[in-house]
């Protein structure tokens, strides 16, 4: 692991630090706390993952565990934003289906291999939740400033993040085996690594705008 990788890993401290500062000042609302816990969990997973990889131990099983968090977080985070009963029901159904499908596929999968199928399931579930959120926003004609709304910002980051890494995660095993050439894996690795930095900056911003105002 090089210096840049350490820098990217340390960038997680940006949203966690922002969240912690707001938490100490008692200005972190419930949604902010959810995001902060998710970031804290992500950092833990990343640290363990880097440590395992550094010691030559397969860490792909950890990604399978992390995928559950990627399913749970957006479902809980956006659930309160749906006002229609039908939307809430569909979110619950999609979430439960995604959890069942992921668990079933995990049962029959090799945990030492990359979770390509589970990634597709997670992407489908997260996309469904975020697009449903956008659709409800259009239907209800809610008016707000998108860049000052924590739900919109987090939704945007999640959707963009999952979309950008989908192909990479689906084809991970092929990429590692050199099927697409070594340079492609290197390019995609670099892109994904740098995207983490961008996401962390954006998550910090999301935590900052979620803060409770003092009148």
């Amino acid at each position, binding site marked *: 692991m090089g210096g840049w990788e350490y820098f990217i890993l340390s960038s997680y401290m940006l949203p966690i630090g922002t969240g912690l500062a707001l938490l100490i000042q008692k200005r972190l609302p419930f949604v902010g706390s959810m995001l902060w816990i998710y970031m804290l969990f992500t950092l833990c997973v990343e640290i363990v993952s880097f440590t395992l990889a550094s010691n030559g131990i397969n860490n792909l099983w950890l990604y399978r565990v992390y995928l559950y968090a990627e399913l749970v977080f957006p479902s809980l985070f956006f659930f309160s934003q749906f006002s229609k009963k039908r939307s809430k029901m569909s979110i619950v159904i999609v979430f439960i289906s995604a959890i069942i499908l992921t668990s079933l596929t995990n049962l029959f999968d090799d945990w030492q291999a990359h979770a390509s199928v589970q990634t597709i399931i997670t992407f489908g579930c997260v996309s469904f939740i975020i697009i449903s959120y956008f659709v409800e926003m259009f239907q209800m004609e809610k008016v707000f400033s998108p860049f000052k709304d924590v739900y919109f910002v987090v939704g945007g980051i999640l959707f963009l993040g999952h*979309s950008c890494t989908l192909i990479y995660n689906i084809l991970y095993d092929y990429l590692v085996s050199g099927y697409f050439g070594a340079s492609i894996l290197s390019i995609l690795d670099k892109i994904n690594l740098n995207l983490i930095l961008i996401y962390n900056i954006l998550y910090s911003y999301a935590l900052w705008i979620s803060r409770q105002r003092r009148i």
Partner: protein
Amino acid sequence: MDQQATSNLGLFVIIATLVMFIMALSIIMFAVLYQQKMRRKKQEMVQLELNYKNEMVQATLDAKEIEQRRIAIELHDDIGSSLTALKLSFVSLPIDDEERKLLNEGVQITIGKVRSLSNRLLPTILEELGLIPAVKSLVNTLAQQIPNVRFSVIAVNDPKHESQTREVSLAVYRILQELINNILKYADATEIQLTLEQNEEGIQLILTDNGTGFVPTKEDKLKSQSLGLKNIESRSQHIGAQIDYELQNPGTKVTLLWQPKTEI
């Protein structure tokens, strides 16, 4: 697999990732643009509602002005003339001079009150001589009617450069009436000072009193049950004048500033 095929597949992966990124970004951008459109639409709605409310208040004020004018003319031309005729008819009455004098005095006082009322409703002096004489006349009348309040007027006029229309003069006059009315009603003041200046630059009116100070908030102006503050706000908005309230120790200082719109 040969080098060419590997390279093509790699390119496909990059393009597919790029397509996914563009697709996600497009959806997010669409949502952002939609929100901006919605916000613009809402702002327009709020503005329309505000304009409608202003127009409603203005229409009420216009109707009130027309009605006041009609009543003032009726009072002056009909009741005033009748009272004068009544006064003249006393000459032929078989009464002694003392009784005639008493009757004449009574009718004269009534004629004076009718004229005063008519003048308050329709300040003819404003139309005939302009804002400053009308304001002076208003203050003189009030000073006579309310002896326990000391009124003082400083009026600076540049008659060659009157920039305002009749509409502006009337609005300023009515605002002043309303402001003085509020002071007399609520401020418990014993002194009212008025400075009025008009020239080519516009009109500046400063009204100070030594009563209980009051500075209306934005909410007071909008939600007040009394028509007074709403009238002041609406009239000033209509002519494009700016009104500032400032707390004094004691009392309040109200500054009205009207400047003619410069056409580009």
